[in-house]
Protein backbone atom coordinates (compact mmCIF):
# COMPACT_ATOMS: atom_id res chain seq x y z
CA UNK A 1 0.00 0.00 0.00
CA UNK A 2 1.37 3.40 -1.04
CA UNK A 3 1.53 6.27 1.32
CA UNK A 4 0.10 9.62 0.44
CA UNK A 5 3.63 11.06 0.48
CA UNK A 6 5.03 8.63 -2.11
CA UNK A 7 2.06 9.29 -4.41
CA UNK A 8 2.81 13.00 -4.36
CA UNK A 9 6.50 12.48 -5.07
CA UNK A 10 5.70 10.10 -7.94
CA UNK A 11 3.42 12.73 -9.40
CA UNK A 12 6.07 15.43 -9.04
CA UNK A 13 8.66 13.19 -10.68
CA UNK A 14 6.43 12.57 -13.71
CA UNK A 15 5.76 16.28 -14.00
CA UNK A 16 9.49 17.05 -13.83
CA UNK A 17 10.25 14.48 -16.53
CA UNK A 18 7.55 15.92 -18.75
CA UNK A 19 8.82 19.48 -18.32
CA UNK A 20 12.37 18.38 -19.08
CA UNK A 21 11.17 16.61 -22.18
CA UNK A 22 9.32 19.68 -23.37
CA UNK A 23 12.28 21.95 -22.74
CA UNK A 24 14.55 19.59 -24.67
CA UNK A 25 12.05 19.39 -27.51
CA UNK A 26 11.85 23.16 -27.78
CA UNK A 27 15.61 23.46 -27.64
CA UNK A 28 16.09 21.09 -30.55
CA UNK A 29 13.34 22.56 -32.61
CA UNK A 30 14.38 23.35 -36.16
CA UNK A 31 14.69 27.12 -36.71
CA UNK A 32 12.61 26.69 -39.89
CA UNK A 33 9.67 25.51 -37.80
CA UNK A 34 9.74 28.57 -35.62
CA UNK A 35 10.15 30.97 -38.59
CA UNK A 36 7.08 33.07 -39.03
CA UNK A 37 6.36 33.87 -42.70
CA UNK A 38 6.59 37.60 -43.47
CA UNK A 39 4.77 39.76 -45.97
CA UNK A 40 6.79 41.80 -48.44
CA UNK A 41 5.43 44.54 -50.65
CA UNK A 42 6.41 45.27 -54.22
CA UNK A 43 5.08 48.64 -55.32
CA UNK A 44 4.30 49.11 -58.99
CA UNK A 45 4.91 52.77 -59.78
CA UNK A 46 6.03 54.75 -62.81
CA UNK A 47 6.21 51.59 -64.91
CA UNK A 48 8.58 49.82 -62.50
CA UNK A 49 8.40 47.05 -59.94
CA UNK A 50 9.95 48.39 -56.77
CA UNK A 51 12.09 46.68 -55.56
CA UNK A 52 12.81 45.05 -58.88
CA UNK A 53 14.76 42.22 -57.25
CA UNK A 54 13.59 40.94 -53.89
CA UNK A 55 15.04 38.26 -51.60
CA UNK A 56 12.59 36.45 -49.29
CA UNK A 57 12.45 33.34 -47.15
CA UNK A 58 10.65 30.28 -48.43
CA UNK A 59 6.96 30.51 -47.52
CA UNK A 60 6.89 34.30 -47.33
CA UNK A 61 4.11 36.20 -49.04
CA UNK A 62 4.74 38.92 -51.58
CA UNK A 63 2.07 41.53 -52.19
CA UNK A 64 2.17 43.57 -55.38
CA UNK A 65 0.30 46.85 -55.27
CA UNK A 66 -0.37 49.01 -58.31
CA UNK A 67 0.09 52.73 -57.57
CA UNK A 68 0.05 53.79 -61.24
CA UNK A 69 -3.04 55.06 -63.01
CA UNK A 70 -2.17 52.57 -65.74
CA UNK A 71 -3.16 48.91 -65.44
CA UNK A 72 -0.40 46.40 -64.79
CA UNK A 73 -0.22 42.70 -64.11
CA UNK A 74 2.24 40.25 -62.57
CA UNK A 75 2.91 37.28 -64.84
CA UNK A 76 5.42 34.45 -64.70
CA UNK A 77 8.09 35.30 -67.30
CA UNK A 78 9.19 32.07 -68.95
CA UNK A 79 5.89 30.36 -69.72
CA UNK A 80 3.13 32.54 -68.21
CA UNK A 81 2.61 29.74 -65.64
CA UNK A 82 0.53 32.10 -63.50
CA UNK A 83 -0.75 35.66 -63.69
CA UNK A 84 -2.42 38.18 -61.44
CA UNK A 85 -4.72 39.42 -64.25
CA UNK A 86 -4.78 43.20 -64.81
CA UNK A 87 -4.63 45.31 -61.65
CA UNK A 88 -6.22 48.76 -61.60
CA UNK A 89 -4.83 51.64 -59.58
CA UNK A 90 -4.87 50.77 -55.88
CA UNK A 91 -5.48 47.07 -56.45
CA UNK A 92 -3.12 44.45 -55.11
CA UNK A 93 -2.37 40.76 -55.57
CA UNK A 94 -0.37 38.36 -53.46
CA UNK A 95 1.47 35.08 -53.80
CA UNK A 96 3.18 32.70 -51.38
CA UNK A 97 6.75 32.20 -52.57
CA UNK A 98 7.97 28.61 -52.68
CA UNK A 99 10.61 28.93 -55.40
CA UNK A 100 12.71 31.52 -57.21
CA UNK A 101 10.62 33.39 -59.73
CA UNK A 102 11.11 35.68 -62.68
CA UNK A 103 8.10 37.73 -63.64
CA UNK A 104 7.06 40.59 -65.90
CA UNK A 105 4.07 42.71 -66.78
CA UNK A 106 2.33 41.11 -69.72
CA UNK A 107 0.68 44.44 -70.54
CA UNK A 108 4.00 46.33 -70.69
CA UNK A 109 6.45 43.65 -71.62
CA UNK A 110 9.53 45.68 -70.70
CA UNK A 111 8.62 45.73 -66.97
CA UNK A 112 10.41 42.87 -65.19
CA UNK A 113 11.23 41.65 -61.69
CA UNK A 114 12.57 38.70 -59.71
CA UNK A 115 11.95 37.06 -56.34
CA UNK A 116 14.77 34.96 -54.94
CA UNK A 117 14.65 32.64 -51.94
CA UNK A 118 17.43 33.35 -49.42
CA UNK A 119 19.92 30.51 -49.16
Amino acid at each position, binding site marked *: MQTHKSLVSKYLLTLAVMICFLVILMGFKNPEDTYKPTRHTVTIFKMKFNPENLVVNKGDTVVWINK*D*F*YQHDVTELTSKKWTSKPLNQGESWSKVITEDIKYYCD*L*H*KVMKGTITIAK
Partner: protein
Amino acid sequence: MKTKMNYKLIVICTLVMGISSLMMAQDTPPLTDPEIASVAVVANQIDIDYGKVAIKRSKNKEVTDFANRMIEDHSAVIKQAVALVTKLGVTPKDNAVSQSLMTQSKETLKKLNSVSKMDFDKTYIDNEVAYHEAVIGAVKNVLIPQAQNSELKDLLEAVLPALEAHLGHAKMAQTKISK
Protein backbone atom coordinates in the same frame (compact mmCIF):
# COMPACT_ATOMS: atom_id res chain seq x y z
CA MET B 1 9.32 48.46 -104.23
CA LYS B 2 9.42 52.00 -105.50
CA THR B 3 6.23 52.93 -103.68
CA LYS B 4 7.69 51.45 -100.51
CA MET B 5 10.73 53.69 -100.84
CA ASN B 6 8.55 56.70 -101.46
CA TYR B 7 6.49 55.82 -98.48
CA LYS B 8 9.55 55.56 -96.25
CA LEU B 9 10.69 58.96 -97.45
CA ILE B 10 7.32 60.48 -96.64
CA VAL B 11 7.40 59.02 -93.13
CA ILE B 12 10.87 60.37 -92.52
CA CYS B 13 9.93 63.79 -93.89
CA THR B 14 6.81 64.12 -91.76
CA LEU B 15 8.79 63.10 -88.71
CA VAL B 16 11.55 65.57 -89.35
CA MET B 17 8.93 68.24 -89.93
CA GLY B 18 7.14 67.26 -86.78
CA ILE B 19 10.21 67.24 -84.59
CA SER B 20 11.53 70.48 -86.02
CA SER B 21 8.19 72.17 -85.44
CA LEU B 22 8.38 71.03 -81.83
CA MET B 23 11.97 72.28 -81.64
CA MET B 24 10.93 75.61 -83.08
CA ALA B 25 8.37 75.82 -80.36
CA GLN B 26 11.30 76.03 -77.98
CA ASP B 27 12.41 79.27 -79.59
CA THR B 28 8.96 80.84 -79.68
CA PRO B 29 7.44 82.09 -76.43
CA PRO B 30 6.95 79.18 -74.01
CA LEU B 31 3.65 77.35 -74.06
CA THR B 32 1.23 78.33 -71.31
CA ASP B 33 -0.19 75.63 -69.05
CA PRO B 34 -3.58 75.57 -70.86
CA GLU B 35 -1.66 75.11 -74.13
CA ILE B 36 0.47 72.34 -72.65
CA ALA B 37 -2.71 70.63 -71.47
CA SER B 38 -4.05 70.83 -75.02
CA VAL B 39 -0.84 69.37 -76.50
CA ALA B 40 -0.95 66.54 -73.95
CA VAL B 41 -4.55 65.64 -74.77
CA VAL B 42 -4.01 65.87 -78.54
CA ALA B 43 -0.79 63.82 -78.47
CA ASN B 44 -2.50 61.06 -76.48
CA GLN B 45 -5.65 61.11 -78.61
CA ILE B 46 -3.56 60.70 -81.77
CA ASP B 47 -2.05 57.45 -80.53
CA ILE B 48 -5.50 56.20 -79.54
CA ASP B 49 -6.68 56.89 -83.10
CA TYR B 50 -3.73 54.97 -84.58
CA GLY B 51 -4.50 52.07 -82.22
CA LYS B 52 -8.11 51.95 -83.36
CA VAL B 53 -7.03 51.57 -86.97
CA ALA B 54 -4.64 48.78 -85.96
CA ILE B 55 -7.37 46.85 -84.20
CA LYS B 56 -9.53 47.14 -87.29
CA ARG B 57 -6.83 46.22 -89.81
CA SER B 58 -4.34 43.86 -88.15
CA LYS B 59 -4.70 40.11 -87.69
CA ASN B 60 -1.47 39.81 -85.70
CA LYS B 61 -2.09 39.35 -81.97
CA GLU B 62 1.24 40.96 -81.09
CA VAL B 63 0.08 44.08 -82.92
CA THR B 64 -3.53 44.15 -81.70
CA ASP B 65 -2.43 43.56 -78.08
CA PHE B 66 -0.03 46.47 -78.38
CA ALA B 67 -2.72 48.64 -79.99
CA ASN B 68 -5.18 47.81 -77.21
CA ARG B 69 -2.58 48.74 -74.61
CA MET B 70 -1.99 52.08 -76.36
CA ILE B 71 -5.73 52.79 -76.32
CA GLU B 72 -6.01 51.87 -72.61
CA ASP B 73 -2.91 53.72 -71.39
CA HIS B 74 -3.33 56.87 -73.46
CA SER B 75 -6.99 57.04 -72.45
CA ALA B 76 -5.87 56.79 -68.82
CA VAL B 77 -3.54 59.76 -69.36
CA ILE B 78 -6.31 61.82 -70.94
CA LYS B 79 -8.59 60.97 -68.03
CA GLN B 80 -5.92 62.19 -65.58
CA ALA B 81 -5.29 65.33 -67.63
CA VAL B 82 -9.00 66.16 -67.81
CA ALA B 83 -9.36 65.58 -64.06
CA LEU B 84 -6.41 67.88 -63.42
CA VAL B 85 -7.54 70.77 -65.65
CA THR B 86 -11.02 70.49 -64.17
CA LYS B 87 -9.54 70.67 -60.68
CA LEU B 88 -7.37 73.64 -61.64
CA GLY B 89 -10.22 75.35 -63.47
CA VAL B 90 -8.16 75.51 -66.67
CA THR B 91 -9.47 75.05 -70.22
CA PRO B 92 -7.00 73.43 -72.66
CA LYS B 93 -6.07 76.02 -75.28
CA ASP B 94 -5.44 75.21 -78.93
CA ASN B 95 -2.02 76.28 -80.20
CA ALA B 96 0.52 75.83 -83.00
CA VAL B 97 2.04 72.65 -81.56
CA SER B 98 -1.35 70.96 -81.11
CA GLN B 99 -2.30 71.98 -84.63
CA SER B 100 0.88 70.68 -86.22
CA LEU B 101 0.46 67.37 -84.37
CA MET B 102 -3.09 67.13 -85.69
CA THR B 103 -2.06 67.88 -89.27
CA GLN B 104 0.66 65.23 -89.20
CA SER B 105 -1.64 62.68 -87.63
CA LYS B 106 -4.21 63.16 -90.40
CA GLU B 107 -1.53 62.25 -92.94
CA THR B 108 -0.46 59.21 -90.94
CA LEU B 109 -4.05 58.05 -90.48
CA LYS B 110 -4.59 58.32 -94.23
CA LYS B 111 -1.51 56.16 -94.76
CA LEU B 112 -2.52 53.61 -92.13
CA ASN B 113 -5.92 53.28 -93.73
CA SER B 114 -4.64 52.97 -97.27
CA VAL B 115 -1.48 50.85 -96.97
CA SER B 116 -1.96 47.25 -98.14
CA LYS B 117 -3.05 44.72 -95.51
CA MET B 118 0.27 42.95 -96.04
CA ASP B 119 2.29 46.03 -95.12
CA PHE B 120 0.01 47.27 -92.39
CA ASP B 121 1.65 45.72 -89.29
CA LYS B 122 5.09 46.99 -90.16
CA THR B 123 3.79 50.43 -91.11
CA TYR B 124 1.84 50.75 -87.88
CA ILE B 125 4.63 49.54 -85.57
CA ASP B 126 7.33 51.59 -87.34
CA ASN B 127 5.15 54.64 -86.91
CA GLU B 128 4.55 53.81 -83.22
CA VAL B 129 8.31 53.63 -82.61
CA ALA B 130 8.88 56.94 -84.37
CA TYR B 131 5.87 58.64 -82.80
CA HIS B 132 6.78 57.63 -79.25
CA GLU B 133 10.36 58.78 -79.82
CA ALA B 134 9.13 62.16 -81.03
CA VAL B 135 6.63 62.57 -78.19
CA ILE B 136 9.22 61.56 -75.55
CA GLY B 137 11.50 64.28 -76.93
CA ALA B 138 8.72 66.85 -76.83
CA VAL B 139 7.58 65.98 -73.29
CA LYS B 140 11.15 65.93 -71.97
CA ASN B 141 12.52 68.99 -73.74
CA VAL B 142 9.49 71.21 -74.24
CA LEU B 143 6.47 70.37 -72.11
CA ILE B 144 8.07 69.53 -68.74
CA PRO B 145 10.52 72.48 -68.75
CA GLN B 146 7.77 74.90 -69.76
CA ALA B 147 5.00 73.72 -67.44
CA GLN B 148 4.37 76.16 -64.60
CA ASN B 149 1.89 74.34 -62.41
CA SER B 150 3.58 71.68 -60.29
CA GLU B 151 0.72 69.19 -60.62
CA LEU B 152 0.82 69.54 -64.40
CA LYS B 153 4.59 68.96 -64.28
CA ASP B 154 4.02 65.89 -62.07
CA LEU B 155 1.51 64.48 -64.52
CA LEU B 156 3.88 64.97 -67.45
CA GLU B 157 6.63 63.31 -65.45
CA ALA B 158 4.34 60.35 -64.76
CA VAL B 159 3.62 60.06 -68.48
CA LEU B 160 7.28 59.89 -69.46
CA PRO B 161 8.06 56.38 -68.07
CA ALA B 162 4.90 55.07 -69.76
CA LEU B 163 5.99 56.50 -73.10
CA GLU B 164 9.38 54.90 -72.62
CA ALA B 165 7.79 51.53 -71.75
CA HIS B 166 5.59 51.83 -74.85
CA LEU B 167 8.64 52.59 -76.98
CA GLY B 168 10.44 49.51 -75.63
CA HIS B 169 7.32 47.40 -76.21
CA ALA B 170 6.94 48.75 -79.76
CA LYS B 171 10.57 47.95 -80.53
CA MET B 172 10.05 44.38 -79.29
CA ALA B 173 7.03 44.00 -81.54
CA GLN B 174 9.03 45.52 -84.38
CA THR B 175 11.73 42.83 -84.17
CA LYS B 176 9.12 40.09 -83.88
CA ILE B 177 7.08 41.06 -86.92
CA SER B 178 10.11 41.73 -89.10
CA LYS B 179 11.16 38.07 -88.73
